[in-house]
């Protein structure tokens, strides 16, 4: 039976509207066979719980599911305090309603930055506990006993030592008149029955039998299908197109022209794609036509020694450098990266004179709704966004450019139209992780340990556009995340040299966010210093992490599991990277074999993680493996280039990603912790690139400072 609930949609929507004035009502995904009585009003004590008179309890998911397992984790938190079993619940996507569903830490309805578990942990348990108290109160009143004589168990209120027992659904009328408790005591972690135990994902069955609905699977009545060509040049425009060749294709009904794109509409996407391929489109490349990769890299190089804005300044770095020379300097260069989520960008929109409906999978519901309102000129409350499962997010679906574009097209189409991007459009019109360079400068003391650390961060400011509140005096705080290193060094400086992508080339958030940007230079830099000092890289880090006990704990566990102290044969090497990201602490050890020809193979990756209190250990393992493979793809292959003001690569042939045959065993170990839960979606990614290059150094003596890893640069030293 499905965990997702569609049959009581109208009922839950009504229940929902009691406490809120919203029109972006919740889309319920999946299907539940048993009907709910038409007149039944579910008990809706808060935004997250809907208890019908009979059948399963609906839990409304404030964060979106894009693979990270949040639906299961949130359900576990609610179930823990509500005292229900996971097979007694169904799940609903939340509608666009930041008042009710904003992440408490972010202040908006955003799923990203590994904020979901951290934002939800207290809120969900309190929502569950408050509801349980109301249900117990209702039963106590009906039975004329003290609430203290009752307990909640598996969806029932039970009389302790007595015989009376009532299902939650039978108590909802009485519970609705119970006061909503304000100050709710929560269980101590030691009495958790659900949280911390491995649980099967609640979304597995639909995803295994093909019934799960992603944005691309939306099929509203009367939908037509569009293929789209967006001007390949940054800020370029459509000059002209003759629509005849497309209109001659069977099934094609319309060619839509907008300023920056052409769309062909048909009765199936295949015909639309065929029609689009038949067109000769005359693009005006605009002022960006001359932009080429070499020039972008030259600008980045020039910024290495240019002006920068101060971020961190501890001790006296300049004096330390003068006193302790020689000064060691390393330049690291990271490429332009795509997200390449498996579900290509798509969005279905129905624009009517007085309303607009959007079917999409988005990480950012409120902006999705606003985007459609902006294009249509309709008031926000006339726009309904139906959110879906996301076929991968990784930060790509934190931007709403695809919704804007689809709505522009839909304005010219009768009825709903599904706009599906080709993989080529998806890669050539991403919100890229732009070029990021780093200059790490350090001096060592007599004991070989660093006395000074200076990190110049060169790259764009995504936050200046995307979340200006996360900048300070022109410094992008996300871009600087972790730049100062976690290591105990008395004199530290970090500064920001902003170097933007060319106009019209969108830059955005990418898995691991700022830490993925800074941990490679930091972890390679510290590894280089250990090498110069002639100290084992594990010992070197240990000495410098005495004030970072959680990072040190993860490092020690990883080292033990990797057998760090055992010798490796010639041609093999191990490399370390540690990562602190979104409240979690990870240590990664990669083991590689490098052949005499310089070709290398990753033999295994060990990751130890302290993510605080664990909700679902199975998800922690899965998310670390996931983050590692994402990082592996970038380290091995990730590189987008620009020519003629356009992205060159276009599909998995010229923009490859890691496949199963390139994925080593990934062993995950959890450091037991009772600290508050940290994020787990990001922390697996940042350490992969540096752990690999540090391992290649250990195997060969070659220091690689540019990604993706170029095997031709590997020499035995």
């Amino acid at each position, binding site marked *: 039976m499905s965990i997702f609930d569609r049959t009581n949609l109208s009922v839950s929507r009504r229940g929902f509207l009691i406490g809120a004035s919203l029109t972006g009502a919740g889309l319920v995904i999946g299907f539940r066979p048993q009907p709910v009585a038409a007149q039944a009003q579910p008990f809706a004590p808060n935004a997250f719980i809907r208890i019908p008179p009979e059948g399963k309890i609906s839990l409304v998911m404030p964060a979106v599911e894009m*693979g990270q397992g949040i639906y299961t984790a949130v359900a576990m938190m609610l179930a823990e305090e509500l005292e229900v079993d996971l097979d007694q619940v169904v799940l609903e996507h939340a509608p666009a309603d930041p008042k009710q569903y904003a992440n408490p830490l972010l202040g908006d309805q955003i799923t990203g930055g590994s904020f979901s578990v951290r934002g939800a942990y207290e809120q969900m348990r309190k929502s569950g506990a408050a509801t349980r108290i109301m249900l117990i109160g209702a039963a106590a009143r009906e039975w004329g006993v003290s609430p203290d004589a009752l307990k909640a168990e598996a969806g029932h209120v039970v009389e302790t030592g007595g015989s009376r027992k009532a299902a939650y659904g039978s108590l909802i009328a009485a519970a609705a008149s119970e006061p909503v408790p304000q100050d709710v005591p929560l269980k101590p972690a030691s009495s958790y029955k659900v949280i911390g135990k491995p649980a099967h994902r609640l979304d597995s069955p639909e*995803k*295994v039998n*093909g019934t799960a609905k*992603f944005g691309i*699977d939306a099929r509203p009545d009367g939908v037509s299908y569009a293929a789209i060509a967006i001007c390949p040049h940054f800020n370029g425009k459509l000059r002209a197109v003759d629509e005849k060749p497309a209109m001659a294709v069977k099934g094609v009904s319309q060619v839509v022209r907008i300023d920056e794109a052409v769309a062909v509409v048909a009765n199936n996407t295949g015909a639309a794609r065929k029609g689009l391929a038949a067109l000769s489109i005359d693009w005006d490349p605009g002022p960006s036509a001359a932009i080429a990769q070499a020039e972008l890299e030259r600008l980045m190089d020039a910024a290495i020694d240019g002006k920068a804005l101060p971020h961190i300044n501890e001790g006296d770095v300049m004096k330390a450098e003068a006193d302790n020379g020689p000064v060691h300097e390393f330049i690291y260069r990271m490429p332009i990266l795509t997200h390449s989520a498996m579900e290509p960008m798509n969005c279905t929109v129905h624009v009517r004179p007085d309303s607009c409906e959007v079917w999409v999978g988005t990480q950012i519901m409120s902006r999705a709704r606003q985007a459609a309102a902006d294009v249509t000129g309709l008031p926000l409350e006339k726009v309904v966004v139906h959110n879906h499962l996301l076929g991968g997010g990784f930060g790509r679906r934190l931007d709403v450019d695809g919704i804007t574009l689809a709505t522009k097209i839909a304005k010219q189409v009768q009825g709903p139209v599904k706009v599906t991007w080709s993989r080529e459009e998806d890669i050539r019109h991403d919100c890229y992780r732009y070029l990021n360079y780093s200059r790490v400068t350090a001096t060592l003391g007599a004991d070989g340990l660093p006395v000074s650390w200076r990190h110049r961060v060169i790259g764009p400011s995504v936050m200046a556009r995307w979340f200006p509140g996360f900048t300070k005096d022109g410094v992008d705080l996300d871009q600087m995340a972790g730049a100062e290193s976690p290591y105990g060094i008395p004199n530290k400086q970090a500064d920001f040299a902003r170097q933007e992508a060319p106009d019209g080339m969108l830059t955005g958030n990418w898995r691991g966010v700022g830490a993925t940007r800074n941990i490679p230079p930091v972890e390679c830099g510290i590894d280089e210093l250990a090498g110069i000092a002639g100290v084992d890289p594990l010992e070197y880090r240990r000495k410098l992490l005495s004030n970072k006990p959680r990072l040190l704990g993860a490092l020690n566990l990883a080292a033990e599991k990797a057998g760090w102290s055992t010798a490796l044969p010639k041609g093999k090497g191990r490399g370390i990277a540690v990562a602190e990201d979104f409240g979690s602490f990870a240590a990664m050890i990669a083991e590689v074999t490098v052949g005499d020809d310089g070709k290398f193979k990753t033999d295994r990756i060990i990751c130890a993680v302290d993510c605080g209190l664990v909700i679902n250990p199975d998800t922690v393992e899965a998310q670390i493996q996931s*983050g590692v493979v994402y990082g592996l*793809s970038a380290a091995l292959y990730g590189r987008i280039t620009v020519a003629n003001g356009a992205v060159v690569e276009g599909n998995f042939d010229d923009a490859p990603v890691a496949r*199963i045959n390139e994925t080593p065993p990934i062993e995950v170990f959890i450091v037991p912790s009772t600290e508050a839960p940290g994020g787990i979606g990001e922390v697996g990614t940042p350490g992969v690139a540096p752990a690999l290059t540090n391992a290649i150094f250990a195997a060969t003596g070659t220091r690689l400072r540019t990604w993706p890893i170029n095997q031709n640069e590997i020499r035995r030293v």
Partner: protein
Amino acid sequence: MQGTASADGVMPYDLSVNGTKHAVDVDGDIPLLWVLRDTIGLTGTKFGCGIAMCGACTVHVDGQAVRSCVTPVSEAAGKPITTIEAIGDTPEGKRIQQAWLDIDVVQCGYCQSGQIMSATALLAANSQPTDADIDAVMAGNICRCGTYPRIRAAIKQAARG
């Protein structure tokens, strides 16, 4: 195989999908993928790349795993087509799906229809696949969530029966 003439004189194609017949009136070079998803409405089969590089669109035609994004509908007409929606009716498909559930392979889930179709074809052809066999077949299916370690484990579990 072409069927009777339609009103506009063009021959529709007769498809047999999961045991059900569909007459579809599209050009013969339209990829099977879009006919399944848009014309017939079976959306479990996914679009990922359009050039047979990612495997998200994998279905079985005549028992063979094919990339439906590059398979013209004319080539699939008249042959039995099986999609993710019905793969559980085959013994190998059922075992693979159960292993996927037991091990919780899925994350975002988008590529998993194709992974399961490829893994089922592998198991049907090779009841005891080695790691190298798994690599050879499953390297055609990309997963950006990195579920590869669990895919490997699930195939081995399904092979054990």
